């Protein structure tokens, strides 16, 4: 077992900007790309990066998420000593409380991390779609003798004001932070992926816990404090596909990227598998009058209608005389005879009744509509 690094995956957020997609489900457990859930990406990255210990911090509506993670075997994390561990808030002698911030969630699990005596702790979040070999950022962290390494990527200048921006010297050492700056001085944006030397992080967490004015947040408290203490903080440049899927629009767009042949995000890369936890289902059946173009379709589906530019998850029944255009349909949904949907996200087990129509012409704002049961 590799206990040099413990990964801590922040998966407790509600994701309220995803609207009804997270009504009864935590954001990391929302479906993505048909058969996947968002959390598959960081968990698969851990697997592909030889990280054997992953703590998953859950809080909001955890049932589906916990059930999905199970013993972690879908991501080869079912090990005797390491493996995947679900870490909900808990009671202690002095009572208990919810996780009040990203740093507080880690603080409350210091004992968990200490059990494995790691050198480094990798902080991940459960709402990004990307493939990354974390061993590279960890090696970078070691080479630079860094206390904290932040993964960054170049974003378009006009987008930079939406991100946490870092300024670095030629050696990638971080000189300054700007959180969502109006006048960004660089276009290197933080990806919310941090490698800490554990002793440094532990001390910072304990100090931050004493500070009653702190929001116990990595971005707002812990990292600025370490910067003020003149700790060695470096930026690890990442290039490749990375998307935050925190809003309905960005979630929709990232899904649609999978249908773009020019997009460099490859789910089919045999050297960097994306794993997911799926049960056996029968193969999909494409009926006699079905028309399917430019779409992703998963096992268990029965397709009798027209599907274009769409992502169809598991166990979906699409009846005859239907049109599913530029839409995302989640597991178990039923599209009844004659229904037409354009630019929609159909939630899990929702039923679009016969002859219901969600047309673009009735949608001047080009809004992505979410249909739920």
């Amino acid at each position, binding site marked *: 077992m590799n206990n040099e690094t413990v990964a801590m995956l922040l998966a407790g957020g509600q994701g309220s900007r995803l609207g009804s997609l997270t009504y009864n489900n935590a954001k990391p457990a929302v479906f993505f*790309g*048909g*058969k996947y859930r968002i959390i598959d990406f960081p968990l698969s990255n851990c697997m592909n990066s030889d990280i054997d210990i992953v703590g998953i911090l859950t809080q909001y509506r955890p049932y589906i998420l916990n059930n999905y993670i199970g013993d972690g075997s879908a991501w080869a994390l079912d090990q005797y000593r390491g493996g995947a561990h679900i870490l909900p808030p808990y009671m202690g002698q002095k009572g208990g409380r919810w996780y009040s911030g990203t740093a507080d969630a880690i603080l409350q699990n210091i004992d968990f991390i200490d059990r494995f005596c790691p050198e480094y702790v990798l902080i991940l979040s459960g709402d990004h779609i990307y493939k990354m070999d974390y061993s590279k950022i960890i090696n970078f962290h070691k080479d630079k003798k860094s206390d904290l390494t932040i993964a960054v990527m170049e974003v378009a200048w006009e987008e930079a004001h939406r991100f946490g921006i870092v300024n670095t010297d030629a050696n990638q050492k971080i000189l300054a932070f700007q959180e969502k700056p109006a006048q960004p001085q660089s276009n290197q944006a933080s990806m919310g992926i941090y490698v800490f030397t554990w002793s440094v992080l532990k001390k910072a967490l304990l100090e931050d816990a004493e500070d009653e004015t702190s929001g116990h947040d990595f971005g707002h408290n812990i990292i600025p404090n370490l910067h003020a203490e003149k700790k060695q903080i470096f930026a690890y440049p990442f290039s490749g596909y990375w998307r935050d899927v925190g809003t309905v629009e960005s979630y929709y767009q990232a899904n649609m990227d999978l249908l773009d*042949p020019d997009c460099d995000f490859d*789910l*089919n890369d045999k050297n960097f*598998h*994306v*794993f*997911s936890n*799926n*049960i*056996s*289902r*029968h*193969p*999909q*059946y*494409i*009926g*006699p*009058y*079905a*028309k*399917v*173009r*430019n*779409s*992703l*379709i*998963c*096992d268990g589906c*029965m397709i009798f209608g027209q*599907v274009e530019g769409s*992502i*169809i998850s598991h166990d979906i029944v699409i009846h005859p005389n239907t049109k599913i255009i530029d839409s995302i349909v989640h597991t178990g949904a039923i599209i009844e005879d004659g229904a037409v949907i354009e630019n929609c996200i159909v939630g899990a087990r929702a039923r679009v009744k016969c002859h219901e129509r969600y047309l673009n012409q009735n949608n001047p704002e080009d809004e992505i509509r979410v249909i739920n049961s």
Partner: protein
Amino acid sequence: MKNVLGIILNVDGEDTTLKNFLEHRSLSTLPFGGRYRLIDFMLSNFVNSGITQIGVIGSHKYSSLVDHLGTGKEWSLSRKTQDLSILTGSSNSRIGSFIKINLRNLINNRIFLENSNADHVILATPNLVTSYNFREVFAAHQKNDADITMIYKKDHGKYQFRDDDLCLNLEDDKITNIYYRSTRRTPFFFAEMLIIKKSVLLQFLDFSDRSGDWDLIDMVLSNMDVLKILGFNHSTYIKRIHTLSNYVNASMDLLEYEVIQDLFRDDNPIYTKIKDNHPTYFNDPSKVSSSIIGSGCSIDGAVSRSIIFRDTEIDKNSKVQNSILMQHCQIGKNTILNYVVMDKDTIISDNTSLIGKPDSPIVIKKGTVI
């Protein structure tokens, strides 16, 4: 169904028309239906019926069986309360004499039978495509205190018979005689699944060891008057795969909606080995109708009335009709395939046409490059 030991063993031998697919594997692991192996059906039926002790008797070609079943995790059989054993079989090597259910397969595994605390044994063949729950037949078997309960199917057109199939003579539910089909026909044929009291089976093994009679059916026939042998009707879809033509027919049956409904039921799911592949991608010019498609495929061409297994790629302007493409085939551009059955890992280069006939499809071995 704690009181039952389930054993999957080959009934009859293998037919030569399937030999191109059986060089590297046994009949039980022949790929079927876009993602399954034949044995998945019976194994899932056992699991769904609540049978917790299962033995699979292989032929001498074990590697595909062991590779497929692994620890039995996908069938929930790797738990402390469940048990999957892969057992050694024995092949029929006597010239001229035909053995239906070879007791030597069981004599080799006598300890497995004796160690089990079950009082009843279900014997079933791995090459049946059916979704079946044994609870009902087992309840009848127990209620009637039968020594043997044989599951039968009423004669129907879809089933392809052989001379050595067994016909049953039924009076009420009691089986009064068993004939080979070549000698005499009745409307009820044995569906190659039976329940037998373990004590009776062990006695048969003793007789067999002493007498040199190896066929369980012969044992049943010579003890017809002293044993209580019942029949039980199987009423849903069932197909036995033992020749190329009924392999193709059963595959094409899956294109009928009613058959899919009958085989893939929510209350009786068919489990198989999980593969982590991406959802199937239908590209812009693709045209697919009346087909079963596995996951991980990438389809740019036209596909109709075909079974496409997992991880297969079909390139632009290609046309695949009435064909079965097993796992991980690659079909080049401008290719025409009609009535072709190809084993896994086959590569068909651009501008190739392969056109078979409905009653004699072109058969392509595993790993062929054309």
